[in-house]
């Protein structure tokens, strides 16, 4: 192997963590029959959340602290990336009895 190629592999490896964060995970949160599940889930900054609405009703995932507000039309899903650490309580603006917690680690 030529030294030049080795160097470029080393460079690629060095930059890899910048492209794909080591802990990035995909977390699914489902709304079905007016219930959010899991009711409590842990995530890390950089993780992607897939919000899945299985109901024929529109829902939202609205953070009480204002960190996020995702609108989910009937039978649709949406994704968002977790940006800030902290324990976030969220609810559906249309049906405030739908509540859950997202624990975000740095």
């Amino acid at each position, binding site marked *: 192997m030529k030294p030049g190629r080795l160097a470029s592999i080393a460079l690629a490896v060095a930059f890899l963590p910048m492209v794909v964060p080591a802990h990035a995970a995909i977390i699914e949160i489902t709304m079905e029959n*007016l219930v959010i599940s899991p009711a409590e889930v842990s995530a890390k900054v950089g993780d992607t959340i897939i919000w899945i609405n299985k109901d024929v009703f529109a829902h939202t995932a609205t953070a009480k602290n204002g960190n996020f507000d995702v609108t989910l039309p009937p039978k649709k899903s949406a994704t968002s990336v977790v940006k800030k650490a902290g324990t976030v309580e969220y609810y559906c*603006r249309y*049906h*405030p*009895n739908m509540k859950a917690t997202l624990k975000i680690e740095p």
Partner: protein
Amino acid sequence: MFIRWSAAVAAAILLSSPALQGASAADKPTDPQIAHIAYTAGVIDINAAKQAQKKAKNKDVKAFAEDMLRDHEAVNKQALALVKKLNVTPEDNDTSKALSKQASDKLAELDKLSDAAFDKAYVANEVAYHKAVNSALETQLIPSASNAELKSLLQTGLKIFQGHQQHAEHVAAELK
């Protein structure tokens, strides 16, 4: 006796009383009657929302009316699909009649109001109405339903309407 039961529901809804009491097993409405009552209750809130869309001034009240319209239409669509699937013909009954009569009186009453007075009265009525319907669902309609799918739809309806009640309470608090 069904008439006694329906009079109790009508009274409870008129007075927004927290619970219906004193109904024995013999008072149980049948599934076709339950389906009719649930559908009628939905139509009533749809009509109230349509009136609010025309008359409301406050943006939160307008948005709330839009939410009611969307959700109640979705529930009623499901209800219609279910009765079709089960081959059940919804049966008109005294409770449905009492509900409709009371609702048309309310529409006429609200029609005389405008601007902030209308907004406030509409939202206050939405709180009271959902409270009454939820109470009827919880204590009478759900326990009386014999078909499992009907029962399950009513249970989903209860969760939605409990959400609407809380939503209406939030909007009412903001208007003060």
